């Protein structure tokens, strides 16, 4: 009886999977709104599935459900330059306070991953280097720069300042956490079901969204940095080549034909937005309306008040998407962005602005789309293959071993139920290769029984009585069975550790299948055989 208990439990657990689509609809209804009445409605419409039956289902992988997957790499270096730029103010203050020793200096080149300063002479530069490397400068509570954050390198009369490795690491950590959060928010905002967003390694993020039409669609959501800034416009040109002041930048418009010279420091930026919604402008063109938080709202209001008649640039990810002339004072911190959007684009931009900007750019390393048709096809073909394969194996076993084959077949079916139950319980994801793993297990599961039956046969040839033959057969076969299955299990474990996605699914079903098939072969069939011998007392068997 102790053998049958786990089998019955397994049957209980696996039972909802045989009515997958209906149970899923009910589960979705329960998730959508927990109200009992609404759920009852859904239940009524569907074929019999009472609520006292279990409702936990196997997760279907992306390849079976259809959906999109992308693997992206966060360009961590992006946030280095932002940090260095942020330190520049403090750095300048510190160096200026020691002007009598180090003289005057100037920043050369643009802000990047590092910052280069040029001093009057070699001596002055080494004085400054000493000051910065010995970390003896005063740090006020207000400054964001701490001595341990930076690394100073000198060549000639130039100092190059970059982030220390320690600081890079902590920035990396922050950048990854923030990126994960923003991506999660954006995917959630888009209203997709059960997305999975995982960090992989130091700088990668794997995003899987079942039911999404294509990876390109997903990338439109997560691929954009969506950094929105509002700048004062200093000039407009038709080429990008222009002499700039050190606090100016030049950016193209959407068509790439016009260039705007802007003040580098934005008046306000997208971080201060509290809300963004798709809407339409006066001319009924798609637009995005937004709302600033009080501080930024006041800043924006003051700026518009004192710059009436001046152009004002709205910049998204390094492109000027619109540069309206300020018509009047805009109080209350609300505004509208018009550009050449389609309705879809304005919807998407609103989502991106609400979710916030990514702290760094991302690079797409891998993208995969499985259409829902292929997913459904795959489930169907997997089912057919499993049934056909199963029937072949069942017939073959009966043909070879007659009565004992029947026992092996019963054990095989119990084995299937066990596999499904284990997969459901551990929350494993079933993929198409996973189904292949189950079908392969059907073929290999009978192996243990074949080994045992062949042994029993040999024992009978030695003129043992039936009970002894069965007993010896099992004992002698055990060593082979264990050895044989451990080797396959090792391969499954290696697959699990190194495989990704679908391959992992295969290794799980293969591994689980090995464990359950050993259990059923050794215990379940033995029980059947002993019961058969007890009740029917056959003189001979296994022709």
């Amino acid at each position, binding site marked *: 009886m102790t053998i049958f208990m786990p089998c019955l439990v397994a049957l209980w657990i696996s039972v909802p999977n045989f009515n997958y689509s209906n149970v899923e609809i009910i589960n979705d209804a329960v998730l959508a709104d927990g109200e009992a009445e609404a759920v009852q409605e859904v239940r009524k419409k569907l074929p019999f599935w009472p609520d006292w039956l279990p409702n936990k289902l196997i997760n279907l992988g992306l390849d079976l459900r259809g959906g999109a997957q992308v693997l992206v790499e966060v360009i961590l270096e992006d946030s280095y330059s932002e940090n260095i730029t942020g330190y520049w103010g403090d750095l300048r203050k510190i160096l200026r306070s020691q002007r009598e020793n180090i003289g005057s200096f100037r920043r050369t080149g643009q802000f990047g991953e590092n910052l280069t300063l040029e001093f009057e002479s070699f001596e002055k530069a080494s004085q400054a280097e000493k000051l910065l490397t010995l970390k003896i400068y005063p740090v006020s509570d207000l400054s964001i720069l701490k001595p341990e954050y930076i690394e100073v390198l000198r060549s000639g009369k130039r100092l190059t300042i970059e982030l220390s490795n320690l600081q890079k690491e902590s920035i990396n950590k922050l950048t990854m956490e923030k990126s994960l959060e923003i991506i999660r928010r954006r995917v959630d905002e888009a209203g997709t079901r059960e997305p999975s967003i995982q960090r992989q390694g130091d700088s990668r993020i794997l995003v899987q969204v079942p039911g999404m039409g294509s990876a390109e669609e997903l990338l439109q959501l997560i691929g954009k940095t969506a950094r929105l800034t509002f700048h004062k416009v200093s000039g407009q040109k038709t080429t990008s080549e222009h002499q700039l002041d050190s606090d100016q930048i030049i950016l193209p418009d959407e068509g790439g034909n016009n260039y705007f010279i802007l003040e580098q420091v934005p008046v306000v930026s997208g971080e201060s937005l509290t809300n963004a919604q798709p809407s339409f402008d006066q001319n009924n063109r798609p637009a995005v309306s937004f709302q600033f938080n009080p501080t930024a709202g006041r800043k924006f209001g003051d700026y518009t008040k004192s710059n009436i008649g001046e152009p004002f640039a709205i910049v998204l990810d390094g492109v000027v998407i619109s540069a309206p002339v300020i018509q009047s004072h805009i109080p209350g911190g609300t505004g509208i962005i018009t550009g050449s959007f389609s309705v879809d684009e304005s919807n998407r931009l609103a989502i991106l602005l609400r979710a916030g900007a990514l702290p760094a750019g991302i690079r797409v390393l891998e993208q995969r789309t*499985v259409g829902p048709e292929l997913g459904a096809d795959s489930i169907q*073909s997997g089912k057919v293959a499993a049934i056909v394969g*199963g029937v072949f194996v069942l017939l073959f076993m009966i043909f070879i071993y007659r009565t004992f084959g029947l026992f092996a077949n019963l054990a095989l079916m119990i084995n299937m139920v066990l596999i499904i139950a284990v997969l459901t319980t551990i929350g494993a994801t079933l993929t198409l290769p996973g189904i292949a793993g189950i079908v*392969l297990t059907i073929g290999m599961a009978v192996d243990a029984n074949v080994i045992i039956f062949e042994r029993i046969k040999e024992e009978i040839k030695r003129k043992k009585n039936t009970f002894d033959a069965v007993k010896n057969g099992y004992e002698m076969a055990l060593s082979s069975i264990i050895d044989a299955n451990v080797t396959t299990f090792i391969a*499954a474990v290696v*697959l699990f550790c190194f495989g990704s996605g679908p391959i992992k699914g295969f290794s799980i079903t293969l591994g689980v299948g090995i464990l359950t098939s050993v259990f059923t072969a050794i215990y379940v069939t033995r029980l059947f055989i002993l019961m058969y011998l007890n009740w029917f007392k056959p003189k001979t068997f296994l022709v």
Partner: protein
Amino acid sequence: MQDRNYDFFKYRKVTSGLSIALVVISALFFGVLGLNYGIDFKGGSMIMIKDDKTAVIGEYRELLNSMNLGDFNITEVFDPAKSLGASSEKTFLIRIEQSQGDQAAQSEVISDVRELINKKFSKALFLQADSVGAKVSGELVQKGIISIVLAVCAVLIYVWLRFEWQFAIGAIAALIHDVLITIGVFSVLRLEFNLAIIAALLTIIGYSLNDTVVVFDRVRENLKKNSKSLLEIVLNNSVNETLSRTIRTSVTTLLALIALFVFGGDVLRGFVSALIIGVVVGSYSSVFIASRILLILGVKRDWNNVGSKAGTQFSNIDA
């Protein structure tokens, strides 16, 4: 059922020669022709499209030609299940090569192709569209090789612990034989070699060992029983005694695999082909190769220090 007693070593020159020849040919093909790597390992894009029966592959090719995609090819997917049932659909597979030095995935290429094909062929349905950047594909190659080496080492250690080093060598020889020949077949037939095939190779390693270990287990048992007989005879008897099991298990596994090959759909076909080859070669090698290596290496004959009572050898671990 009468006792079988085939002499498996009678034609050892033929069988060993055949195996060596096959392994050498496989290695040569692999070396000269290489493998038809899929986008997992080479980078690039793969798009699978379903269209109805009237679709003409030439029209697709023409359209793609006009797009300036660089190196690409388009093929029609063969599906035995569909050709049996006079299918009303055709499936096309488009592969686009990664441009040199491009590390990222070709997102734009895929969206361009999607847009254009949807415009021109109204019935076309995108089943699958994958793109893998060179950076990731390089890592996947590395991971694949590491996983195979690791699996081989792990089972080598296991067999060595449970048996003797000669057995481990025999098992590994059989296993390398199986894996190499499978790779050889993939090279000759230009079948796509992708991540799933690595999984298949690892399964073949597991299966090949499974087969070999059952034979070895019997060898060990018989060596204990008949410490006086010639090694050749003991080995031959062991192979004979386990022969029906070897065949029957292969048959059931093959039945399941053939069902998968025919009905399992396009996505699984390469994977299942590899497994079918591996199971056939694996059964052959456990009969002809593994025991042959044991015969060449010779085995420890003095097993008397371990319990001689049948049925308890499970607990003996010969480290």
